[in-house]
């Protein structure tokens, strides 16, 4: 099982001839991903690491069935690439590109919603169904030692912290089913609410770890969703542990400064860490204050839920 992608997913890489695109292609193939085609407008010939390159998605689709696409094009042309993918009907779009203007994302997200296409990102590090397949730049180079197959789903707003979180789990003997980097922009594709529903239906996943952050409202949305299910007598069945970063930014009153993530800026009084932690706890999420203790905490939570079951 696993979520979003597995050993049968066929991938397209948009921007395959760029430096990052070539690197991602190589790393994805090494991880066992079926990269069937690449697209770079105007450079539609030849191949990258044995993967054929086309001028357009339509051209690629004449020869290949494509289940997911990875966006690795420069920010200025990202909107064009994403719109092309949506209109081609590729069901899953994973956007790695950073610094895409928010109005371009607003357009793409609205179009994707209309066409029932799933978007993960932008500013995503990728998706990794460990041991099966991956897309994006997640688990590249040395950082692949952090990941190991297992039963924990990870959803992370930070790319780097998806790796560190996997490493912490590994150190207590836990592996991962799927690791998803959602990115942390103010407008983004699927996040905690959608992804925990995928994990709910995934038999392989026994528990979920979230790396959350100040800014935005995805944590608040998750809390509201979980509370609603509890009230309806249908509580979410798997343990969820979260780490919410941003204590420093809040205590030092740096909320208006971007400390690395665009979405970590707090607009108005929404998105404060205190509020997120409070709401998540009320909704039944276990919030851990020290990141490296997350491994033990999720381990205990899973064995407790096994006893209850």
């Amino acid at each position: 099982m696993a979520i979003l992608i597995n050993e049968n997913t066929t991938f397209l890489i948009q921007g395959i001839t760029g430096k990052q695109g070539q690197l991602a292609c190589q790393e994805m193939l090494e991880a066992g991903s079926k990269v069937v085609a690449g697209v770079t407008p105007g450079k539609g010939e030849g191949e990258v690491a044995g993967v054929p390159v086309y001028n357009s998605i339509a051209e690629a689709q004449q020869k290949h069935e494509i289940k997911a696409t990875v966006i690795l094009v420069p920010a200025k042309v990202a909107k064009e690439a994403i719109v092309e993918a949506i209109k081609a009907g590729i069901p899953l779009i994973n956007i790695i590109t950073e610094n895409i203007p928010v109005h371009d994302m607003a357009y793409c997200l609205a179009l994707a919603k209309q066409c029932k296409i799933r978007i993960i990102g932008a500013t995503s590090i990728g998706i990794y169904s460990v041991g099966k397949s991956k897309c994006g730049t997640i688990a590249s180079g040395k950082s692949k030692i952090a990941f190991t197959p297992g039963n924990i789903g990870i959803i992370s707003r930070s790319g780097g912290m998806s790796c560190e979180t996997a490493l912490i789990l590994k150190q207590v003997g836990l592996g991962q089913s799927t690791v998803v980097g959602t990115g942390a922009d103010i407008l983004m594709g699927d996040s905690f609410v959608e992804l925990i529903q995928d994990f709910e239906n995934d038999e392989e996943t026994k528990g979920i770890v979230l790396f959350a952050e100040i800014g935005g409202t995805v944590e608040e949305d998750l809390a509201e969703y979980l509370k609603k299910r509890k009230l309806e007598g249908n509580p979410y069945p798997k343990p969820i542990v979260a780490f919410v970063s941003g204590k420093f930014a809040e205590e030092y009153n740096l909320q208006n400064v971007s400390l690395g993530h665009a979405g970590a800026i707090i607009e108005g009084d929404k998105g404060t860490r205190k509020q997120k932690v409070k709401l998540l706890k009320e909704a039944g999420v276990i919030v851990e204050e020290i990141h490296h203790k997350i491994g033990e905490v999720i381990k205990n939570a899973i064995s407790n839920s096994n006893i209850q079951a």
Partner: protein
Amino acid sequence: MKLKEFEAKKLLQAVGIKTSNGILIQDIKNIPEVKNVLVKVQTLTGSRGKAGGIIEVNNKEEAQRISSRFLGKEFLNERISEVLLDEKIDVKKEFYLGIMFDTSKRCPVVLFSEEGGVEVEKAQINKIEVDYLEGLKKENLKEIPEAIREILIKLYQVFVRFDCRMIEINPLALDDNGRLIALDAVAVLDDDARYRWEINFPERTDNRDATAREIAARQIDREDHRGVAGKTFIDLDGDIGILTVGGGASMTLMDTLIQCGGKPANFTEYSGNPPKEKVEKLTRIVLDRENLSGLFVAGVIANFTNIKETLQGTIKVLIEQKTLFPIVIRRAGPHDQEAKEMLEQVKKEFNLDIHYFDETTPMTKAAEIMVELSNQYKEKNGYFN
């Protein structure tokens, strides 16, 4: 990037939204004959009115006297370089209009209130979601007074055309002659779209003037485009020097450090395999402080950053300055084995108090160790007396 009032009003004027007439003054010599105008201090911080930054004056001399109180001086922790001499309007009613993105609905939202002005936080606010593909249409605004619909449609044009993250008119005033006039405006533009902004506004990163160290750090990044180092640098008043790596990781490291009682002297980060010269320069700025009790260099496992080379930049400065405080390094990635050997050798040869950890020690555990060692160092050197 946030705009000042006079800048935000330019956006409104570009689509034909009527604003109060103002004269921008940077030098009191340029103040003309005036009567019954408001001197409005141009700040990035809100609530300047409550803080005494909007003052009515009746003649040129008064305008000069009041303006000179602010120009070139500090107000609300900002250095003021402009005041606006703004026409005073007799207001019958004030409205609030705003457009921003709703992160939860993933679309723009229009906000409207019949009770605009300084107390808008407490007012009843209408919220209307906008389908980005359709844009804002009059049909979406049935609940809004007719005359204001048109202004909202124009405001939405501003929102899209100028790549705003948010735009607000507060208040939109109804005057005695039945005209609707924007008296004040706030706009935040999307920095990621800077390449296509129609108007080039000056760069700013925060509400306050940068310190010399902050300016120097940003300069490092501007001069050399290989990797990122120093782009974000914030001076703080603690005693542990910080060189963290990567966005999410940096925040988590700082969280842990303060959670354990550590006091950072700064915040900065580098990423994307910067050359050792860049890291060296950044290290110099981090260490340009008195009474440091430690240096913390940490990040997640690097994909492609050369650990040995980046650490060489830092080590060079530590050797030069013969530092005595503890240095906690948590790094892993390409060439980390060679880095480890280098650090062991340097530690012996130059008597530096280096504590190196690789991926087998959690990143946040290293932060805890940093705080412990810093406390021991301070105790030993009488910092607590």
